């Protein structure tokens, strides 16, 4: 018997919709400020910094960061940690373009680590679309949710 068998299972969050209703538009002034904050000048060809893959999907998904945590029965004040982030682009992100988000929680898996103790590993997928529905990217993010209440 695994020691995880003595713990309650992770909440059943898989399948929770993260579809958004908000429209995210990449603002030229903000893109320029973002680029400069990371040590580069904005592109002159109308493309936005590709990190907007993360920003646009987070800001325009159907739940806030706290809301995603709540769906996992986790208090955002307990400190969710980014584990990994992956993205596949179908097209570059453009300054002035408007986008909407669809997505869902893929899994929430309880694990035990030497460093963090009991934790839930959250994986969710978001897709960014032009307003006509054309998909421009898909991103999978993994967060680690440390479950302090199960500390030995």
């Amino acid at each position, binding site marked *: 018997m695994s020691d995880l068998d003595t713990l309650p299972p992770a909440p059943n969050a898989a399948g929770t919709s993260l579809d958004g209703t908000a429209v995210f538009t990449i603002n030229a002034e*903000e893109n320029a*400020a*973002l680029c400069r*904050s*990371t*040590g*580069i000048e904005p592109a002159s060809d109308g493309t936005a*910094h*590709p*990190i907007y893959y*993360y*920003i646009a999907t*987070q*800001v325009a998904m159907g739940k*806030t*960061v706290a809301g995603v945590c709540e769906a996992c029965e986790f208090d955002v004040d307990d*400190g969710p*940690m*980014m*584990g*990994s*982030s*992956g*993205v*596949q*682009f179908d097209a*570059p992100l453009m300054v002035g373009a408007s986008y909407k988000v669809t997505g869902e929680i893929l899994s929430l898996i309880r694990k035990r680590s030497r460093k963090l103790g009991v934790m839930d590993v959250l994986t969710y997928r978001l897709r960014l679309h032009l307003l006509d529905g054309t998909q421009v990217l898909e991103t999978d993010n993994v967060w680690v949710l440390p479950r302090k209440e199960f500390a030995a």
Partner: protein
Amino acid sequence: MSYAVGDTLPPFTIESVSPEAMKQWAIFLADPNPIHLDVEVVKAKGLGDRVINQGPANVAYMMNMLMRAFPGGRIKAMDSRFLDNVYGGDRATVTGTVTAIDGQVISCAFALDIDGRGTVNSGTATIEI
């Protein structure tokens, strides 16, 4: 410009990660998590004695290295792993190497290192040139 497997990519360095930039990123991300804004909160949580950079900002540094290494290229896919925090005042350097070439698509591995602490982010990407 030609590339070969094993090529080392030009490094990209942030001389000092800026707490002021973290305030901007809190707005970009619509996420006012105080560990990025208030050193007293970081101390109270036992996470250190400097504000912690937002993870996506670290990804942006790694993208910057790739974009500078392949002018006119386009990132097709990228995976990043978060191994440790980046703090305000850290000197951060992104390095990378070419791991495969398939026609106009180049695969790379990269890492974000902090002076004195080693690798805090790593990952892989494919670039269409």
